[in-house]
């Protein structure tokens, strides 16, 4: 392969299954990126992971009875999130312990149910690692539809979701039904997870939710910019990961996640203001001239930059 000719960029697009795969990963990148912003800001990463695993029995049951896999997953997700809320409210078991219990319990139930199937191993692998090359046109349309629903709802209620995430007590005082918006967000999160399952698989879906959003947070202090960046990073890393997967025969889910984590690592080290390496370099330059800086120091500026 001649890397200079750039034909390697267009080659994968000649296959229909790769076109579908690119379409799916872009959609998933955008949907999970945007949803993930609120997951990371509200510290719901563990919850998201639990939800991804706990939808497993729902999917298996729907698969066994020949029902709609998406509906099965959604029902399971809602049941699990309500269950976590109920156990967490008992006062003796903390929320993340409740998540841990239902997370593992749900997943075990799924495995047990699936074991009755003859194609057990194949199905389990597809579920765990995704099967992006098997995405059909119909899957793509469904993903797009759900994406419009999730992103549209988040846009419509953006002010409530932001206020609840930033300052719950104030949100309550403003008359926002905090409980209702928590539940709404969990349903949106469940939808985002379910549409990501086929592309990246159950084990790696968390990476698509958390990593692009975390990368975006390192680059900006503005929520709007963070949402845009997370969507862009999610989609771009997805596409790059698919190329890598195509040429190196790495499973697509793993490949996409590795690219996402790699980009996070680069930004973590070298982001203009927040990067570990770049800020250290900047500090070295900064403290090179203490006598000059003494005059530049204003109390207000000092507080603002803290």
């Amino acid at each position, binding site marked *: 392969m001649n890397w200079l000719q750039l034909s390697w960029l267009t080659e994968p697009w000649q296959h229909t299954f790769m076109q579908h795969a690119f379409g799916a990963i872009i959609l998933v990148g955008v949907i999970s990126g945007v949803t993930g912003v609120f997951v990371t*800001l509200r510290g719901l990463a563990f919850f998201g992971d639990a939800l991804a695993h706990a939808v497993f029995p729902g999917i298996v049951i729907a698969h066994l009875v020949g029902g709609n896999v998406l509906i099965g997953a959604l029902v399971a997700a809602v049941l699990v999130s309500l269950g976590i809320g109920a156990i967490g409210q008992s006062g003796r078991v903390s929320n993340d312990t409740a998540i841990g219990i239902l997370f593992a319990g749900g997943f075990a139930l799924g495995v047990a149910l699936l074991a009755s199937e003859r194609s057990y191993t194949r199905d389990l692998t597809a579920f765990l690692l995704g099967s992006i090359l098997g995405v059909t046109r119909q899957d793509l349309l469904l993903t797009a539809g759900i994406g419009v629903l999730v992103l549209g709802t988040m846009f*419509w*209620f953006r*002010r409530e979701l*932001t*206020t609840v*995430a*930033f*300052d*719950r*007590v*104030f949100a*309550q*005082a*403003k*008359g926002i039904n905090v409980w209702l918006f928590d539940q709404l967000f969990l349903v949106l999160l469940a939808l985002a997870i379910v549409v990501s399952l086929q592309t990246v698989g159950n084990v790696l879906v968390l990476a698509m939710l958390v990593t692009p959003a975390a990368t975006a*947070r390192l680059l*900006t*202090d*503005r*929520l709007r910019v*963070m949402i845009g960046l997370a969507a862009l990073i999610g989609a771009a890393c997805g596409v790059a990961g698919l190329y890598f997967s195509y040429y190196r025969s790495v499973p697509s889910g793993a490949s996409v996640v590795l690219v996402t984590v790699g980009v996070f690592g680069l930004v973590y080290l070298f982001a203009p203001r927040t990067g570990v390496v770049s800020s250290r370099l900047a500090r070295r330059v900064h403290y090179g001239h203490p006598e000059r800086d003494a005059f530049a120091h204003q109390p*207000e500026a000092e*507080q*603002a*930059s*803290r």
Partner: protein
Amino acid sequence: MNERFLAAARNDREGEWLQSNISSLGHALSRTKAPPVLAVDSLSVHYGDRPALCDVSLTFSAGETVSLVGPNGAGKSTLLKVLAGMLPPSHGTVTQAGKPLRRPHPAVTYVPQRAAADWLFPVSVLDTTLMGTAQAPRWRPFSRGEKGRALDALAMVGMHSLADVQIGSLSGGQQQRVFLARALLADGAAMLLDEPFAGVDVPTQGLFVDLFGQLQRRGVTIIYATHDLDQAARAASRVVLLNRYVIGDGPPASQLSAERLQAAFGTHALMGTDGSPG
């Protein structure tokens, strides 16, 4: 200036009306004609078995600055949440302008404790203030007018120049100023503040006292919880001593006496407040 004059004139007219009708009650009753801005009657609140407030009856009229003083766990925050319509009472009633208050009302603004917010959140000072905007259509971003009003509110608390700064990079006092600006934007008849002076620098405290004075003159009722007796004496026109029950209620000078405070705080707490009362 004009507004104040009109308000004074209105008060006089009400006074005349009252004096001609119920002459024996005198001018002092002129304020009681309109229903109180906020009132609680025989209020009790329980968290499970634990009582937080017992048999509290209080009325708050327009233009009062009331400080709720009491030790930790005295029910100050609970009372504020009930008055904000966020917490239903176990017994008794809450009324806002004469009507029962069952849920948060736009006329009542609540300023939570600073610790309640997520300060790492990626919002600017202006974004935070805009959260106080009452009703903006969902389909569009905030308009120039709405942003202008938010900047005006920030200017009132001296935070105008830091509008684009991330909220978490501010000092404690500056954060509390932004919270106050957000509350000013709601333009309510009553403002409830939970520990507005906690962890706030001296200039900010002074600014708050001035601002409370301005709001008071505009007829806004301000009720704030504090355990800082100095601030209670300086900023408030009325002090309510609270320790689950109402221990005392009246002008600062009468309430912040040694015996009263001992009744509210107990002996141990009083040792820490040496010199402050009076």
